[in-house]
């Protein structure tokens, strides 16, 4: 048995060695920010703790005499069981290298997130799924590595550490990456515990729930019609209560998921302004039915209703009481109206559970979600005033093939760097309203090749984001 245990330790050390070799490889790569290396350091130190403890057990001959073989095996496994988890974490680092991300966008995005979540570390990585996703790490890591052995490891963990993944195939299409606003929204929703406030506000339609319960019991009773009965038997009553309880649990879970998704959308609008709405339509409409809901997500049509509610609302602090809706260019207005109309159309019947949840998310609930999210932004949302002040100047630059990274004050002979959100909003306005003018720059080279012109627009915006970030950082250092 001792021999077997000794071999087990050796094999585990081999796994540690393999992991450390992979860490060394990944350390050599270039990342756009320090965040991936923070996670890499976590994995490295975790691996080191496991390896050194295995060494100790191996060398401690007394242990072999005092512990039973089962106890010894347990002791070894106490450390080894973390190895697969550490290996899984590497997945978050792969795809975050400069070659696999629009590197120039990552640093400004991190800066943007830090504006809302102080001292946060976010890894932005591309992956093979055609989807954007958010994975919070801090709580998860604290839970998994909660024992005394990993105490020192957790001390260095950032307060808010998360991974935002985006589709690799869309890596260079920066306009789409406004979808990241939704993922940041998940972080803010969790950080501000909005679920505790919002979910209790949603009430389930009891009669609809009773109706589904009856149908289920009927089906379970092999087709016996129980709906017409005046009184249910004791067994039937018990069964009915059990079904209702299960249904309520399920519906509450779906409500919880949907409320979080809707709140994340509201955060997306607050952070990125209309650009998030446009990116959502562009990305989601291509791959999803407008009226299809799921256990985790409400249908795109409900989500669009919420976003539209925010965009058409007058902003309180606005002196002229403006809404985004009113200041869009004509073509953009038409685009928005068409989509809002489609989203508000009645669709085919939903799955009964989703139908109940959808009916529970009333316009009042949508208002509550929006107002709580705005409250959570503490006045730092992207404002209509900013949009109105910057967008037409920035659009003019883009139309003329000039990156909108700075605005020139000709009188003062000064330049001011544009912020990433204004750049993206101007980009969307050009995409929706001025693409013909923009494409004219390339009429000799590409001739009506929309894909190439879209690509050029995205490249120009990425350049603007890069240059704006470099100038901002340069001036920050000068002023230190």
């Amino acid at each position: 048995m001792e021999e077997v245990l000794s071999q087990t330790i050796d094999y585990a050390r081999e796994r540690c060695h393999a992991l450390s070799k992979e860490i060394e490889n990944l350390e050599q790569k270039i990342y756009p920010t320090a965040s991936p290396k923070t996670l890499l350091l976590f994995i490295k130190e975790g691996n080191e703790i496991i390896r050194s403890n295995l060494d100790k057990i191996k060398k401690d001959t007394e242990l072999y005499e005092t512990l039973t073989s089962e106890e010894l095996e347990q002791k070894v496994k106490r450390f080894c069981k973390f190895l697969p988890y550490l290996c899984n974490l590497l997945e978050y680092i792969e795809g975050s290298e400069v070659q696999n991300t629009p590197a120039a966008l990552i640093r400004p995005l991190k800066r943007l997130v830090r504006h809302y979540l102080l001292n946060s570390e976010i890894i932005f990585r591309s992956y093979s799924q055609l989807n954007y996703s958010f994975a919070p790490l801090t709580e998860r890591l604290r839970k998994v590595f909660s024992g005394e052995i990993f105490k020192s490891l957790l001390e260095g963990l950032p307060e808010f550490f998360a991974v935002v993944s985006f589709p690799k195939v869309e890596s260079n299409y920066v306009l789409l990456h406004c979808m990241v606003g939704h993922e940041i929204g998940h972080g803010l929703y969790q950080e501000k515990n909005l679920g505790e406030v919002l979910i209790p506000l949603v009430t389930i339609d009891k009669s609809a729930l009773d109706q589904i319960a009856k149908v289920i019991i009927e089906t379970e009773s092999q087709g016996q019609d129980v709906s017409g009965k005046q009184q249910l038997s004791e067994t039937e009553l018990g069964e009915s209560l059990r079904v209702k309880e299960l249904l309520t649990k399920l519906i509450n879970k779906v409500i919880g998921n949907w409320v979080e998704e809707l709140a994340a959308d509201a955060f997306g609008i607050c952070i990125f302004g209309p650009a998030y709405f446009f990116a959502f339509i562009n990305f989601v409409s291509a791959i999803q039915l407008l009226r299809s809901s799921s256990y985790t997500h409400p249908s795109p049509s409900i989500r669009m209703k919420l976003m539209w509610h925010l965009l058409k609302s007058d902003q309180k602090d606005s002196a002229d009481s403006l809404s985004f809706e009113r200041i869009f260019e004509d073509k953009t207005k038409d685009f928005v109206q068409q989509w809002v109309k489609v989203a508000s159309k009645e669709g085919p019947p939903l799955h009964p559970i989703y139908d109940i949840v959808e009916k529970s998310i009333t316009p009042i609930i949508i208002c509550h979600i929006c107002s709580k999210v705005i409250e959570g932004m503490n006045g730092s949302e992207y404002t209509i005033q900013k949009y109105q002040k910057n967008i037409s100047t920035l659009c003019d630059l883009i139309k003329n093939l000039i990156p909108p990274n700075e605005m020139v004050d000709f009188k003062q002979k000064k330049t001011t760097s544009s912020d990433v959100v204004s750049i993206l909003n101007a980009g969307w306005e050009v995409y929706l309203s001025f693409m013909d003018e923009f494409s004219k720059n390339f009429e000799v080279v590409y001739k009506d090749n929309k894909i190439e012109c879209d690509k050029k627009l995205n490249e120009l915006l990425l350049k603007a984001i890069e240059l704006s970030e470099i100038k901002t950082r340069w001036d920050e250092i000068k002023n230190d």
Partner: protein
Amino acid sequence: MIEPSDRLEELIFSKQENTREQLIITPILNWKGQVKKGSASVDLRLGCSFRIPKKSRLTDFNPLDADYDRKRPGLQDELYIGIGDYLVLHPRQFVLGNTLEYIHLPSDLAAYVIGRSSWGREGLVIATATGVHPGYSGVLTLELTNLGEIPLKLYPGITIAQLFIHRVNAPHKGGGDHSFFLGSTRPESGKPISDEDIFKIRKFNESET
């Protein structure tokens, strides 16, 4: 006629009705350092994007090859090196880089980009195709080669080249640059011969009379 530095500042900050007729060099991180008083050029910085040729099984690089455009992208690695980091350029190594600044020339201005002599003395050749046409918009691609004997660390953000701006005597209004490189945001490899020339060169011997 070369525009002196004082005049350059004036050109950049005098608002034109039509944005296309505006001289734009963006961003200029350090005005005093890059547009020196009494000089006749703007110093340009090294940008963050590079194209590095890689070893391949391709036996030659033939511009008359029908598959030229398809083969070309696979022959270079694209690399982004942020400011603060560096690229090592080894002796005899060739890479494409670009200026950090994005340039737009109105229809009455043209420019020449040349290396800074202090880098030239270290063996670094910066640009060989140096003319920038009126109406051009984009970053300028730099052909970087280390002709020296020791590796050079190239930090994006360092001043590496200088741009001399010339006035064009009879500007072509409404025209301007329509080249393949228009709107470049990173180093670009181009097609060295036009399709028309390729056709004629291929047929040259066939049509001998």
